[in-house]
């Protein structure tokens, strides 16, 4: 190896040694919950509300930072902790720290319980709907059966009338009776057929009807990753979908970002590219789409944020 090459190799080694870092040990610091709502209108100013399901993100921090937070949380008074626990059990944001684990668990348990209750409620609603559908189906089948029966009876009558006519015709032919008898039976058959036709008319007229359905815009909130590291970028994604048959005049979206999560307002982007304005004020990010959203259109809003160290240290009111 030449001296020049050796020097380069040494320099490289030194550089690598300087760049190498001990692997960062991360620990769960907090769980932050993010909610969003949207307002829309078919005409005029947005006024109808639609809410997105909240999204939870686990905040990870270096172990040292976590220990600091543990010490800080230990110094809190017991009364404060109790109040915090009570708040986190029923509210939206969970707090990190020593009590964070218990509080986090409690809140997760509450959230699980809430989800379970919602699931049970949904199942009950589904069961009721299916029961109602079943009843409607049974009723429809019964109506169909009745109509078929009626038609069958009519057809039988016609057939009987036909048979009668044939017999009478045969009799008329054989006994050479007058023309009047044959004419009378023909008239009778015609009457029976009309009656059968009328019954069909009645059935079909009764069945003509209408059905209805409803639709409204929906808002979905997602986080790019389920976990975020303190100091790193975390992207939230909002998807607003206009599932109605109408163009919306204007749409206003309010994103309730948890404390310690700061949006990079200038980097917010919409897909497809629509004209919008974004305003960050008192923990609320307001996104206004002044020209609305067309029918059937979906708008994806990407909100880049930075997770600060104090993320999840207080609650959203």
């Amino acid at each position: 190896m030449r001296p020049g090459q050796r020097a380069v190799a040494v320099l490289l080694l030194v550089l690598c040694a300087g760049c190498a870092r001990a692997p960062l040990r991360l620990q769960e610091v907090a769980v932050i919950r993010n909610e969003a709502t949207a307002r829309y209108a078919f005409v005029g100013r947005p006024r109808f509300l639609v809410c997105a399901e909240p999204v939870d993100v686990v905040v990870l921090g270096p172990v040292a930072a976590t220990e600091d937070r543990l010490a800080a949380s230990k110094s809190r008074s017991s009364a404060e902790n109790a109040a915090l626990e009570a708040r986190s059990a029923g509210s939206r944001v969970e707090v990190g720290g020593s009590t964070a684990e218990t509080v986090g668990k409690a809140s997760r348990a509450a959230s699980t319980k809430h989800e379970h209750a919602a699931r049970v409620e949904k199942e009950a609603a589904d069961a009721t709907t299916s029961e109602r559908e079943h009843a409607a189906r049974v009723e429809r089948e019964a109506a169909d059966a009745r109509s078929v029966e009626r038609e069958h009876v009519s057809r039988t009558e016609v057939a009987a009338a036909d048979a009668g006519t044939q017999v009478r015709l045969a009799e008329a032919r054989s006994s050479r009776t007058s023309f009047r008898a044959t004419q009378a039976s023909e008239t009778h058959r015609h009457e029976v057929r009309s009656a059968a036709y009328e019954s069909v008319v009645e059935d079909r007229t009764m069945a003509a009807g209408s059905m209805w359905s409803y639709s409204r815009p929906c808002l979905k909130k997602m986080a790019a990753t389920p976990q975020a590291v303190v100091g790193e970028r975390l992207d939230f994604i909002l998807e607003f979908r206009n599932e109605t048959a109408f163009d919306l005049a204007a749409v206003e979206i309010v994103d309730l970002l948890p404390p310690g999560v700061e949006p990079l307002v200038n980097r917010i982007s919409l897909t497809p590219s629509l004209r919008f304005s974004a305003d960050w004020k008192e923990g609320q990010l307001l996104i206004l789409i002044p020209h609305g959203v067309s029918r059937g259109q979906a708008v994806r809003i990407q909100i880049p944020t930075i997770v600060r160290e104090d993320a999840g240290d207080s609650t959203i009111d």
Partner: protein
Amino acid sequence: MKNKVIAVAALLLVLVLAGCGSSRVHFVGPAGSKLFLSHPEKEYTMPIVLELKQNESPKKLPVDAGGQSIRIVLPDGTRLKGYLHVYSISMDQVERLAEVPFSLSEEQIIQLKAGTAVTVIGFTGGRNQPVYKINLGVERE
């Protein structure tokens, strides 16, 4: 000569009728509601039976595009706006005689006032062909 004239007249009649299919829709209620149609531009008061010109293929039933403008003002002053689609279907005698109903129930009105778009589809009896589709949304309460 006479037969030729009759044949030409019959042909003309068939051609005229082929382009003028219509469906009878019975706008039942809420009774007293005002109904405004854009083609022809007229105002009606419910309940009323209207002969509506068929102008769309029933294949477009799932598509929410086009349609003629329709406005309904409910008795309480709530203004609804929407689109009316009348489908070109071949109806038998029975279906032609039947009036396909349209009415808004209390539940539908509540949904509309809450900002929901309501779609009502009218069907013929028997063969269940779509006669009309009306999409409605609240304009002003």
